[in-house]
C-alpha cells in the first residue's frame, strides 16, 4: 500500500497516551494468548478426537447462541433497542416444546410417529415464543417508540423478571427433564469420529433454520420490507409499508427462532429450567454484539464464534499457561474476547463502520 507510510507518519503525529495504552494492551493480550497457545502446543494434552469433540461441542452450543442472537439482532436492526426479555422467550419456547413432547409421549405418539411429534413440538415452540415476543413488543416497546433508550431497556428487564417467575409459578421450580427421543439417540461415524446423532441433527436443524430465515429475509415481501424499515422508516412509510406491522413481524420472527433454539437446547441438554433464559439470553446478546448487532449474518457468525471460543478457548490458550481449572474461566475468555473485539472493532466483526454522514 502506497499510503501506508504517510498514514503511519500522520498517525504518529496524532497519537496520544491513550493510543499508546491501547497498543500496549493489545500486545499484552496477544502475548498471553500467544504464549498460552505455544506452550499448549509444546505439551500436547489432547489428541485428534478431543479437538474434534471440542469443535463439535462449540458448534452445537454456538448454533443455539446464534439462533438466540438472531432475535436480538433483528429487533435491534429495526428499533435500535435491546430486548432483555428475549432469553426468557427462548425459555418459554423450550417449555412449550417440552410439554408438547410430553403430551405426545402420554398418548404414545412419540414412539409411533416421531416425525409428527417433532413437527408438533416445533410448531408449539415457535408459536408460543412468537406470541410472547409480540407481547414483549406491545408491553415494553410500543409505548416507548419515540422515547429515550433507557425506558424500553428497563421495561424489558422487568418483563424478563415477570416471565421468569411466571414460568416458575406455572411450571414449577424443578429442573424439567426433556422427553427423550429414541429416534435420535446413538452416534454416527463422521470421518472416523463418533459424533452423537442428536448433535448432528441439532446443528443441521439450526443451519436449516438459519437458511429458512435468510430466505424469509432475503426473498419474501415481508422480509424485504423488514430490511427496508431497518434502513429508513420514513421512506418505508412512503412506500405504503405499515411499519408497526413489520415491527411486530420482526419480533414474532425473532421469537420463533428463539423458540426453535429452545427446542434444540432441550434435545441436546435434555433438561430445562425456568432460570436458563437469563444466562443464555446474555450470551446470545453477546453473540449478536460480537457479530455486529443489527447484522443478520453477523449474529450467526457471532454465535458460532462465541460457542467455539467457549469450547476451544480454555484448551487452546489457558492449558499452556497452567491455570487451575481452565474451564471455570471460559466465560471470562468469552467476555474478554467480546470486550477486545469491541475495543478494537467497535462495531463488531461484521458491523458497519460508523454512518458516513452525520451532520
Amino acid at each position, binding site marked *: 500500500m502506497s499510503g501506508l507510510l504517510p498514514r503511519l507518519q*500522520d498517525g504518529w*503525529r*496524532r497519537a*496520544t497516551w491513550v493510543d499508546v495504552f491501547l497498543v500496549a494492551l493489545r500486545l499484552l493480550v496477544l502475548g498471553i494468548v500467544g504464549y498460552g497457545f505455544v506452550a499448549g502446543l509444546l505439551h500436547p494434552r489432547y489428541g485428534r478426537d478431543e479437538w474434534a469433540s471440542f469443535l463439535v461441542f462449540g458448534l452445537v452450543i454456538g448454533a443455539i447462541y446464534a439462533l438466540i442472537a438472531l432475535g436480538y439482532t433483528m429487533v435491534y436492526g429495526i428499533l435500535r433497542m435491546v430486548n432483555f426479555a428475549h432469553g426468557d422467550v427462548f425459555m418459554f419456547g423450550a417449555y412449550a416444546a417440552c410439554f408438547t413432547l410430553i403430551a405426545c409421549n402420554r398418548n404414545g405418539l412419540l414412539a409411533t410417529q416421531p416425525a409428527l411429534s417433532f413437527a408438533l413440538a416445533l410448531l408449539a415452540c415457535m408459536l408460543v415464543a412468537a406470541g410472547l415476543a409480540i407481547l414483549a413488543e406491545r408491553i415494553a416497546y410500543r409505548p416507548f417508540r419515540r422515547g429515550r433508550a433507557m425506558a424500553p431497556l428497563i421495561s424489558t428487564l422487568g418483563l424478563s423478571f415477570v416471565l421468569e417467575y411466571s414460568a416458575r409459578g406455572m411450571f414449577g421450580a424443578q429442573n424439567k427433564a426433556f422427553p427423550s427421543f429414541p429416534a435420535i439417540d446413538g452416534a454416527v461415524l463422521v470421518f472416523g469420529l463418533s459424533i452423537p446423532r442428536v448433535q448432528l441433527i441439532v446443528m443441521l436443524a439450526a443451519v436449516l433454520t438459519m437458511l429458512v430465515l435468510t430466505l424469509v429475509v432475503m426473498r419474501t415481501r415481508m422480509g424485504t420490507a423488514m430490511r427496508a424499515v431497518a434502513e429508513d422508516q420514513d421512506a418505508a412509510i412512503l412506500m405504503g409499508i405499515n411499519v408497526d406491522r413489520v415491527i411486530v413481524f420482526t419480533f414474532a420472527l425473532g421469537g420463533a427462532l428463539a423458540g426453535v433454539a429452545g427446542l434444540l437446547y432441550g434435545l441436546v441438554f435434555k433438561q430445562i429450567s425456568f432460570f436458563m433464559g437469563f444466562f443464555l439470553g446474555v450470551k446470545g446478546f453477546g453473540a449478536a454484539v460480537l457479530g455486529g448487532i443489527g447484522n443478520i449474518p453477523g449474529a450467526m457468525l457471532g454465535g458460532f464464534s462465541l460457542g467455539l471460543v467457549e469450547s476451544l478457548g480454555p484448551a487452546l490458550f489457558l492449558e499452556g499457561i497452567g491455570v487451575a481449572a481452565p474451564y471455570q474461566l471460559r466465560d471470562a475468555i468469552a467476555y474478554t474476547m467480546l470486550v477486545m473485539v469491541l475495543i478494537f472493532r467497535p462495531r463488531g466483526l461484521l458491523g458497519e463502520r460508523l454512518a*458516513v*454522514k452525520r*451532520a
Partner: protein
Amino acid sequence: MTELLRAAGVSKRFGGLLAVDRVSLAMAPGAIHAVIGPNGAGKTTLFNCLTSFTPPSAGEIWLQGARIDGLRPDLVAARGIARTYQNIRLFPDLTALENIMVGLGVRRPETLLGALLATPAHRATVAAVEARARALLLDLGLGGRGDRLARHLSYGDQRRLEIARALSVQPVLLLLDEPAAGMNPVESHAMMELIARIRDEHGVGILLIEHQMRVVMGISEQIHVLDHGVCIAAGTPAQIRADPAVIAAYLGARAAKHGMDALEKRA
C-alpha cells in the same frame, strides 16, 4: 498581517462521493466571508473539515500560521475555531446560562478538589465564569433568559444562544452555519446586524453559510460559491451576483440564459 485561516486544496471523500473537491480559501483576521451554494454542494462538509469533525481526505488547513487539519476537534477548538450548526445543536436540557458556561469552563477548568470543597479560589472562578456568561447573554440580547432551559427558548433566541456559546470559547474564527435559516426578513436583518456587531466587538473572523442572499450580500466581504464540492466562484458580492456560473448553479443550467436576461433587465 498574518492570515487568519488558510485552506489549501481541501478535499473530502465519502466512499465514491467527492463531497468537497480541492477547495482553497484564505481569510484575514476579522473578515466576514460567506460560503454559498445549492443543497448538497458540500458547504457543511467543508465546515466539518475545518473543525476536524470529519478530517479532510487531502489538503492542508492552517489557522494563524499553525497547521490544524486532522487535529482532534477539541484541540482545534482550543486553537480558536468555534461553530454553530445548521439544525441548532444546543444542549437542550441545560439552561441558557449553563450552555454558555460549558464553553467558558473549558478555558478556565476547575479542579476536582476545588469543586468538591468549594474552595475560595474555586468560588472566585465560578463567580467570574458566571459573570462573564451573563455578560455574554446580555450582549446577545438574551439577558433575563439565562435560567430557562435551552429547549424552551424561542427559535430566534436559540440561534443567538448558539452563537453566544460559540463565542464563549473565545474563538478567533467563528463558523456560522445558516444563522438566519427559518427567519423572516425582519429577523434576518437583525441577525445580519448582530453578526456584524460581533465581528466588530469581538474581533473574530466570521465564515458563514447562508441561503438568504439578502444576509449574505449585506455583510460578506468575500463570497465563495460551492457546487458539487467545487468552488466555482469567489469574489465580492457584486462579482458573485453577476457571475453566470453562480446563476446557473442556483437556478438551473438551461435557465442560466433566462437568469442573465432577467438580471440584465433589472440592471
